[in-house]
């Protein structure tokens, strides 16, 4: 299955975007969780604060569906 991960900030270099400057196309087997997908890509999950898909907040146990566009939000220092 193919999903699209998007990220900016410190995470972007880790993600290695290939679709546009923010987006990477990722092929995964089965329906893994985001945590498992990050593991597959070698991205420490501690560097992802949360994900955003379909206008909704998603935790790392979220299982993306075919074609999902998932934004990975890096953590930041507070205001």
């Amino acid at each position, binding site marked *: 299955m193919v999903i699209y991960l998007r*990220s900016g900030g*410190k995470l972007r270099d*880790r993600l290695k975007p290939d679709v546009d400057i923010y987006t990477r196309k990722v092929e995964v087997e089965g329906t893994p969780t985001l945590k498992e997908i990050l593991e597959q890509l070698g991205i420490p999950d501690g560097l992802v604060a949360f994900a955003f898909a379909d206008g909704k*907040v998603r935790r790392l146990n979220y299982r993306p569906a075919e074609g999902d566009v998932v*934004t990975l939000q890096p953590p*930041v220092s*507070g205001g």
Partner: protein
Amino acid sequence: MDGFGGTTLRINLSTEEIERTPTDPELARNWLGARGFVSKILYDEVPRDADPMGPDNRFIVTTGVLTGSFCPVGSKVGFGCISPATNGHADSSMGGHLGPELRYAGYDLIVMEGIAARPSYLYIDDDTVELRPAGDYWGMGSLELEERMKKDLGEDFQIATIGPSGENGIVFSCITHDFGRQAGRCGVGAVMGSKKLKAIAVRGTKSLPAHDLESHWNLTYDILQRTKTHPNMAPWQKYGTAFFVGWSNERGCFPTKNFQETYHKDWEKIDGERLVEDCLVSDKACFGCWMNCGKYTRARIPGKPDTYQEGPEYETIALVGGSCAFTDINHVAYANYLLDNIGMDTMSGGSTVAFAMECYQRGIITKDDLEGHELRWGNIDDFEHFVGMIAERRGVGDTFALGTKGAAEILGQGTIAFASQAKGMEFSGYDTRWYPAQLLSYCTCDIGAHHSKSWTITTDIELGRDTIEGKAPVVIYLQHIRPLFDTWSCCRLFWGELDVTPEEHVESIRYLTGWDITLDECMRVSERVWNLNRAHYIERNGGPGRRFDVAPARHLDEPIPDGPAEGKVVGRENFEAMLDDYYANRGWDRNGNPTREVLEDLGIGYAADNLEKLGHLGEPIPGGIPKVRGQKLKPKAM
């Protein structure tokens, strides 16, 4: 001078003399603005034995080179003084619209000294500058006063105020503007109050001269187009910083019950999603910003009046919500309102109440000290009553008005061990026991513990949370790059979250000013400021410098009791080893004193002369100082 308003105001509040001078081009170029101006002026002008709350302290309102420009986002204004909390250099900034308005009135910098004979406010309407009697403004809450002054003077005035807390000299008093933007840290509001200055009102209708306006604008336009589709934009617009409560909690660094714990079991009741669902009224932005991370909210608690406030953002949720163990976002938002209106920094204010709650838990203070009230974890009525005691300095409130360190020194009984502060200023909203670089950041910070100068939670994750290796140089790099935004006086979030590079900020400065300036030069200014502040601190407080880079015992010795970081603690040996590494990488000696070589390299040899006279100049480093001080984090192999 292109890029600047052009005028510096000097005001003697005691004599009411107001002097206008052209802004010094050398000061502008060598110190760039805001935090840099504050550092240099305090060092040059404030007698080393001056009382922070006395007439000889300076109270500085300052813009930076990017304030009011098109560069994203020149919304900030800085305030500076010797801090009553730390007895050292203080700079604290806020967004909103005041800084740009000051520039459009033609002013880059206002330096005030003395103490007004009666409560006053500073009125600036372009070329008209007056000290006016505050009358019945004195005594009003910050938020209420801003509304009143806008009615009295006109909606187009930008207003900054202090509340009763600042009037009464509470050391963690803040300055408020735009109904919820604060210069919160270091007690700048207390110094403003000590000057008997209740408010500053500014209207500016002029323009800022730019060297190459077209290029300056085109650069910003390109950034605007690029960042509109940035992946971080939508989540930031929806939640602001409040969203990171869950992440921080899951990483075991969310301060809970005065940092006794680092995992708040009810975090979902006080996080960003709850805030947006239950309380959000509208988004809110500073001058020139298209990210609008501010969240204007309503708090509803049965039996209490509804309140409207900006926030709470992450730090307030952590240090009021988590640290005081609230379990309802409405209570956190209401507490946010109370502190904002009374004029207390929500970070140090929340921390100080949490510290008092632990004192109550341990029986160190009792109902007898609390006018018959209790001070229970997560109880909004107890919180409200106690904040009132502090603000009016009633009974034991007078003790806690000094912040956690000052209160612990009076209370004794080992309370200093659980006062999470460095140099007298309370920690930001991240526990450090699994994050050693963050502990180093807090304890070496030139204004007291504050994440804005170095935030390393993700650095600790990248390099390994159980190691101290390689962290000191990264802390130093961050202590130069992050405060640079306080010096340029623009919002750091466009760099951190939207990938607008520091090089682009410098390009913007070049177009604005015509200066042939580089990022390296700016980083040197930032390092110069850091070292001058260090020298100043030692000159005021005595040496050696290492004596002041002290971590609270809780963070060194007390393992985290449960949650994701269970059993973690930094340990004294590790902390001392990090300090050694830090000093060596800064070009300071093992006592934490700056050396002549580093001070001269940065063009502030006069500080070496002064330290030498006092016997606190660093010993020369065998083999010399490092050529480059600080190291950008290199992510592990990808």
